[in-house]
C-alpha cells in the first residue's frame, strides 16, 4: 500500500476486517454508522479507536463505579491525567499507564516509551514533571527470559527518565510464574502546575489552526493499540516491528518547548499523541470540544518517503503533540519550537461539522462522523462470575526456626533489596528528592516550598487472585498506609488495571471484584481515583492451547501531601534504647502470606482481612504522631509481615533490635492496618489515644528474637543477594 489511489479504492474483505481486530458485529456497526463501506483509512481509524486499549469497551461500565470526586479533585478521569489541589494555587497532575506487551517483546524500548508516554500525559496538561514511579511484574526468577527482561526494562526506564531529567523515585517489583510470558510494566508520572495554568484537550474555535509539534512521523508502532488489545501467542516476538522507539532527548526538548509556549496564552487545547497517535489525539480533541476537524495529510511531517494517510494516522511514533492555537499566534509558537529544534506544522483547522475529514493529494481520504467513533464506541457488558472464596486454612504449619525463616524471606524475590534497580535510576535530579527509594513512600519537595508530595505504588496480586474484592481493597489500603507512614495526608490515586482476557467470565469476574473492593476502599479512605488505564488480554496461550493469565493486578499509584517536610518520617531506626511498638491488632491470618509461599511452598488460604475503619483510624493516628514529633521512625507492615518490617527498619538505620518472644504466626502474618513505630523512653505514647503494643527495644547489631541473634550483616547479605545472583552483577 504505497499508493493512495489503491489505498482508498481497496475493497474491504472479511479478512482485512479480522486483521484489524474488529469483530463481525463491530464491522456491521461501522457500516451503519457510515451508511456505506469504509475505505481502508477509515477502517484503520475505527479499528484503533474501538480497540480495547482506546475504547475501554469491556471495562467502561465498571470503571464508572469508582469514586472520582472530592473537594481536592480539580479534574478526574477523562483528560490526559488527573489533577489534584495541593494548596497555594498549585496542583499535582498524575497518572499511571501500562506498557506491558511492548515491554515483553522489546524490553528496553517498550519500557522506555512507556515512561515517555506517561510523561507526555502529564506535561500536556501544563505540569512540569517532578517524579516518575513504576510498578513492575516479572516471571519466576529462574525462567529463561526473566533476567533478560529485568535487565532491559530497568535499563529502558532509566535510559529514558535519566536523560529527560525527571527523577525515578521508587516503585514496586514482584516475581511470579503467572508473568513468565506476560510481564507488566506500569509507569507513573507526577507533575506540578499552577491551578490557573492547566491545559485541557477540548478543541474549540471554528477556524483555529491545528498544529503538529515534536518528532516526525515514521512507520513505527503501527497497530500498537491493536496489539495491546489481543492475547499473546508463541509468535508474539514477531510483533517486534510494532514496538515504538523512544528518543528521550527529543522528549526533553518537547517538555521545555511546550512549557515555554504554555507560559503564553496561545494554546486553546493540547493533546499528546500516544496510543493510536494522530488518530486518537485528533478524535479526542474534536470529540471533547464537540466540534469537527479537518487535516491535510500532505502537511504532516514525515520521517520516511511515500507514507500513506493510513500509515500516518496509525503510526505511534513517539514525542509528538497536537495543539489548537489561538488564531494569529502561529509565528510566535513556531519560533519557540524552532529554538528547541523541533518540527512545527499547521496541519488543519477546527470545523463545526462534527466530522473528521482527512485530505491527501487533493482528495478526501476519510470522512467519519465523530459520534460513533468515540462516544458511541462499543460498550460491552461481558459475562462475569465471582471468584469462589478460598477455603480457610485448616492446617497451619509451625516454624522450627524463626531466624532461619527470616533469612530466607529477606533473600526472597519479593522482599529482597531493590537497590540494584534504583541505583540505575537517577532518583535525585531536580534536587528535590527528600525521601529516596527504599522507604514506605518516596517524597519530593514542591520546588521552592517546604511542602512535599509523597508517592507510592501498591498492589498485592496474590491477594487479588485469592479474593479480588479484598485484594482490591488491600491495594488502596496499603497505598494509604505507605503515604501515611511518611506523614503525608493521602489525597488521591491513579489505577492501572492489568488483567487477562475479559472475554472469559472468570477473568471478568476478577476485574469486577477488584473494582468493587477498590470502590469501597477509595470511598472509606477518601482517596478518589482521578486517572488510570486498563490493560486487558495479559494472557498467553501456548502451543497446547493452555492459557496462562497474569495474576489480577490493579496497580495503584497514590499521592499524599506533607505540609512540612521537616516533619517527614522514615523507616530507619534512629537511636539505641528507643522503644519499638506495633499499632494495630494481629489476627491469625496467615493465608496468602509470603512466609507460607517461600518457606512452605504454599499459595493457599484467604488473604488477610481488610478493615477499612481500622485503616482510617490507624492512619489518622500515625499521621498525628508524626506531626507531633512523638515517633522517631515509622514503617507500615505489609508483605512478609511484622518481623520482615522490623528487619527493614534495623537495616535502614544500621542498628539492631531486641524483640519480645513471638511465634511464627505473629512474626509472619500479613494482617493489615498495622504500623511499626519507635519512640523515646522519656516520651512514651499515650495508651488512651494510641492502640499500641510495645514489642522491643532498639540496640545492638543483630535482630534478637526468641533468644537467638541474627546478625544485621547476615540479614543485609541475604537481602542484597537476590539481585546480585539473578543479574550476575
Amino acid at each position, binding site marked *: 500500500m504505497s499508493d493512495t489511489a489503491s489505498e482508498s479504492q481497496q475493497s474491504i474483505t472479511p479478512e482485512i476486517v479480522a486483521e484489524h481486530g474488529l469483530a463481525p458485529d463491530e464491522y456491521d456497526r461501522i457500516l451503519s454508522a457510515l451508511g456505506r463501506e469504509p475505505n481502508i483509512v477509515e477502517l484503520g481509524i475505527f479499528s484503533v479507536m474501538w480497540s480495547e486499549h482506546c475504547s475501554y469497551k469491556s471495562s467502561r461500565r465498571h470503571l464508572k463505579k469508582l469514586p472520582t470526586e472530592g473537594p481536592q479533585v480539580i479534574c478526574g478521569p477523562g483528560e490526559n491525567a488527573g489533577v489534584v489541589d495541593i494548596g497555594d494555587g498549585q496542583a499535582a497532575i498524575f497518572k499511571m499507564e501500562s506498557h506491558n506487551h511492548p515491554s515483553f517483546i522489546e524490553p528496553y524500548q517498550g519500557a522506555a516509551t512507556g515512561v515517555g508516554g506517561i510523561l507526555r500525559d502529564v506535561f500536556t496538561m501544563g505540569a512540569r514533571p517532578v517524579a516518575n514511579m513504576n510498578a513492575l511484574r516479572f516471571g519466576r526468577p529462574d525462567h529463561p527470559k526473566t533476567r533478560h527482561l529485568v535487565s532491559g526494562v530497568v*535499563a529502558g526506564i*532509566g*535510559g529514558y527518565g*535519566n*536523560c*529527560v*531529567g525527571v527523577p525515578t523515585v521508587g516503585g514496586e517489583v514482584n516475581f511470579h510464574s503467572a508473568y513468565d510470558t506476560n510481564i507488566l510494566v506500569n509507569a507513573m508520572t507526577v507533575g506540578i502546575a499552577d491551578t490557573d495554568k492547566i491545559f485541557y484537550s477540548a478543541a474549540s474555535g471554528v477556524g483555529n489552526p491545528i498544529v503538529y509539534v515534536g518528532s516526525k512521523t515514521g512507520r513505527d508502532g503501527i497497530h500498537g493499540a491493536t496489539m495491546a488489545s489481543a492475547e499473546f501467542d508463541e509468535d508474539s516476538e514477531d510483533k517486534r516491528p510494532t514496538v515504538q522507539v523512544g*528518543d*528521550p*532527548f*527529543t522528549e*526533553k*526538548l518537547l517538555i521545555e518547548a511546550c512549557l515555554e509556549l504554555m507560559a503564553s496564552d496561545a494554546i486553546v487545547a493540547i493533546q499528546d499523541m500516544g496510543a493510536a497517535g494522530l488518530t486518537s489525539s485528533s478524535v479526542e480533541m474534536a470529540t471533547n470540544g464537540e466540534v469537527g476537524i479537518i487535516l491535510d495529510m500532505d502537511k504532516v511531517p514525515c520521517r520516511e518517503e511515500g507514507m500513506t494517510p493510513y500509515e500516518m494516522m496509525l503510526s505511534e511514533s513517539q514525542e509528538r503533540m497536537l495543539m489548537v492555537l489561538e488564531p494569529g499566534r502561529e509565528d510566535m509558537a513556531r519560533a519557540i519550537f524552532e529554538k*528547541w*529544534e523541533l518540527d512545527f506544522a499547521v496541519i488543519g483547522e477546527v470545523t463545526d461539522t462534527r466530522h473528521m475529514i482527512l485530505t491527501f493529494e487533493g482528495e478526501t481520504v476519510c470522512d467519519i462522523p465523530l459520534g460513533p467513533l468515540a462516544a458511541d464506541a462499543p460498550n460491552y457488558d461481558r459475562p462475569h462470575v465471582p471468584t469462589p472464596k478460598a477455603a480457610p486454612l485448616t492446617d497451619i504449619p509451625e516454624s522450627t526456626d524463626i531466624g532461619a525463616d527470616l533469612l530466607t524471606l529477606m533473600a526472597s524475590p519479593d522482599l529482597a533489596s531493590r537497590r540494584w534497580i*534504583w*541505583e*540505575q*535510576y*537517577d*532518583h*535525585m*535530579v*531536580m*534536587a528535590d528528592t*527528600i525521601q*529516596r527509594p527504599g522507604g514506605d513512600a518516596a517524597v519530593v*519537595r514542591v520546588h521552592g516550598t517546604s511542602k512535599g508530595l509523597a508517592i507510592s505504588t501498591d498492589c498485592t496480586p496474590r491477594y487479588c487472585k485469592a479474593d479480588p474484592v479484598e485484594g482490591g481493597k488491600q491495594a488502596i489500603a496499603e497505598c494509604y498506609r505507605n503515604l501515611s507512614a511518611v506523614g503525608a495526608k493521602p489525597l488521591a490515586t491513579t489505577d492501572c488495571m492489568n488483567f487477562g482476557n475479559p472475554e472469559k467470565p472468570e477473568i471478568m469476574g476478577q476485574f469486577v471484584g477488584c473494582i468493587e473492593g477498590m470502590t469501597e476502599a477509595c470511598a472509606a479512605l477518601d482517596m478518589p481515583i482521578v486517572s488510570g488505564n486498563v490493560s486487558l488480554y495479559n494472557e498467553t496461550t501456548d502451543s497446547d492451547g493452555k492459557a496462562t493469565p497474569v495474576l489480577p493486578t490493579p496497580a495503584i499509584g497514590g499521592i499524599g501531601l506533607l505540609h512540612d*517536610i521537616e516533619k517527614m518520617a522514615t523507616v530507619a531506626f534512629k537511636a539505641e534504647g528507643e522503644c519499638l511498638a506495633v499499632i494495630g491488632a494481629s489476627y491469625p491470618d496467615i493465608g496468602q502470606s509470603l512466609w507460607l509461599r517461600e518457606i512452605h511452598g504454599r499459595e493457599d488460604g484467604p488473604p488477610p482481612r481488610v478493615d477499612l475503619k481500622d485503616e482510617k483510624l490507624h492512619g489518622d493516628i500515625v499521621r498525628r504522631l508524626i506531626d507531633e514529633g512523638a515517633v522517631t521512625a515509622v514503617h507500615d507492615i505489609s508483605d512478609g509481615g511484622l518481623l520482615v518490617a522490623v528487619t527493614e527498619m534495623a537495616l535502614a538505620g544500621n542498628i539492631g533490635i531486641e524483640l519480645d518472644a513471638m511465634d511464627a504466626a505473629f512474626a509472619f502474618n500479613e494482617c493489615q492496618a498495622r504500623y511499626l513505630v519507635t519512640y523515646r523512653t522519656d516520651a512514651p505514647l499515650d495508651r488512651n489515644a494510641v492502640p499500641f503494643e510495645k514489642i522491643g527495644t532498639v540496640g545492638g547489631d543483630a535482630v534478637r528474637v526468641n533468644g537467638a541473634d541474627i546478625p544485621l550483616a547476615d540479614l543485609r547479605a541475604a537481602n542484597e543477594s537476590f539481585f546480585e545472583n539473578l543479574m550476575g*552483577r
Partner: protein
Amino acid sequence: MKSAVIVFPGSNCDRDMAVALEQATGAKPHMVWHRETELPDGIGLIALPGGFSYGDYLRSGAIGANSPIMREVKAAADRGVAVLGVCNGFQLLTEAGLLPGALLRNAGIDFICRDVALKVASSQTAFTSGYQSDETITIPVAHHDGNYFADNDTLDRIEGEGHVAFRYDESVNGSARNIAGIVNAAGNVLGMMPHPERMIEPAHGGSDGKRLFDGLVQALG
C-alpha cells in the same frame, strides 16, 4: 559575584546548579543559551551543568562542545575566569579540550546513581578551598559515562602537578586511579563527575557539596 550557567539542549541539572550558585553567591546566575555568542559582562564563574546535552548522541558532550557559546567559554577560561563542569559539564570540558582525558562508559556498564565517598586530593585549588586535603566527603554521582581515562603519561603528569581534585574512596566506575575530578594547569577549570549541587542542605542528606560552592565564591572574592 556574577555567575553564569550555560544551558544546552538536553541539560537537566541547570536549575539545580542555579539554585546552588544563588545560595553561594547571593544572586541569581545568568542562564545563557548555548547558541549565544557572548557571555554577559563581568562574569566571574561559569558553570556547565549536568544532563544529556544533545542526548549524549555521538559521544557524551561531543556535540555540545561545538556549540557557539563554547568559544566564549574557552576564551574566558584563558583569561582566568573560573569554569566549573559537573557530570555532563566535565564531559563537555574534556571534549572541548579544556581538560585532558575522556569519560568512558562505566566499567560496570550500568548507569550509577548513589552517594559516594570522595577523598579531597588537594585543597590547594579555588574549587576545593572549602575542604581539607585528604578529607573524606559524601557527594552523589549519577552517570553512565563517568569512567575517567587518560594515557599513563598524562595521568602521571596531572597527579604529579597536583591537578587531581577528588578521588573516589572505592572503585565506582572504573576511573583510572579513582579520579573523580581534575583541574587544569592554571587551576581555574574544574571538571568532576559527582554532583555537589545535589548535596547542599540537610534535606539532601548532607551539605558537603555546599562547601565547594562557598569555598569557591570566597576564594574568588
